[in-house]
């Protein structure tokens, strides 16, 4: 006697397009992380061989160009405004880490202006940002 019952195929989950999905995901994450990049001023970094990680949970980056122009997150600011901004940041979070990122050819007098403000506000720990020398 013949069996007329149709043989059922085993169910298969097609994953052939997974590679395409993965690739698209990769592109998406790359673009998102590029968008979230930190503000960078075009400066020539100072270099040193032995440096330490100075990043904290809350950070405030002060960029100083070689002509003495000071900027924070892309906005060029005066010394008075810098003082107000640091005071506000420290009041909000006393553990905020202040980073000074200056061009290697910046005359020290411009860096000293920022240092003096920090001393005036009694915020005595500062990070001098340096790029690792290769």
């Amino acid at each position, binding site marked *: 006697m013949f069996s007329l019952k149709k043989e059922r195929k085993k169910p298969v989950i097609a994953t052939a397009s997974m590679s395409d999905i*993965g690739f698209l995901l990769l592109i998406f994450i790359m673009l998102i992380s590029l968008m979230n990049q930190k503000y960078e001023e075009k400066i020539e970094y100072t270099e040193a061989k032995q*440096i*330490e990680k100075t990043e904290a949970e809350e950070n405030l980056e002060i960029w100083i160009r070689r002509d003495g122009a000071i900027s924070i997150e892309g906005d060029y600011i005066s010394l008075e405004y810098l003082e107000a901004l640091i005071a506000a940041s420290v009041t909000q979070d006393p553990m905020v880490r202040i*980073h000074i990122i200056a061009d290697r050819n910046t005359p*020290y*007098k411009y*860096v000293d202006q920022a240092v003096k403000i920090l001393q005036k506000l009694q915020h005595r720990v*500062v990070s001098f940002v340096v790029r690792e020398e290769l």
Partner: protein
Amino acid sequence: MKLQPRRRSFDDPGSSGSLNDLSFLLIIFFIVIAGFNTTKGFLVTLPDTSRPRLVHQEDLMRCTLQSTGAIILDGKEVSLNELSTMVGAKRNAYPNMTFLLVINAETKYQYVIDIIHEIRRLDVENFSFRMEDNVQS
């Protein structure tokens, strides 16, 4: 002799062989990105202007950094290596030594960083710096 034609293997619709490569690329990408975003440098404690510290004369090592990058120690120009040797010797003789760096206003920032780097490398705990023509320390 009868040669059998080679059978071509057909693509399995359930294959996910390239996913390994993709996940590997993804990991590499994240490692690189994580490395880019960390801020590195020197953590410096600024001198307290309201409470100046008293330092014994023999514990003090005063160094001047000129605008040209020249390092003046005890009235004599020294190289960075010589400074390093002299600071090391002084620290061995006086473990509580204080290194005071007086920086000319026009000195390039990189020269200042070079000195800070040497001081850090030598583990000098008491390090103070100020700009020239400035009364406060």
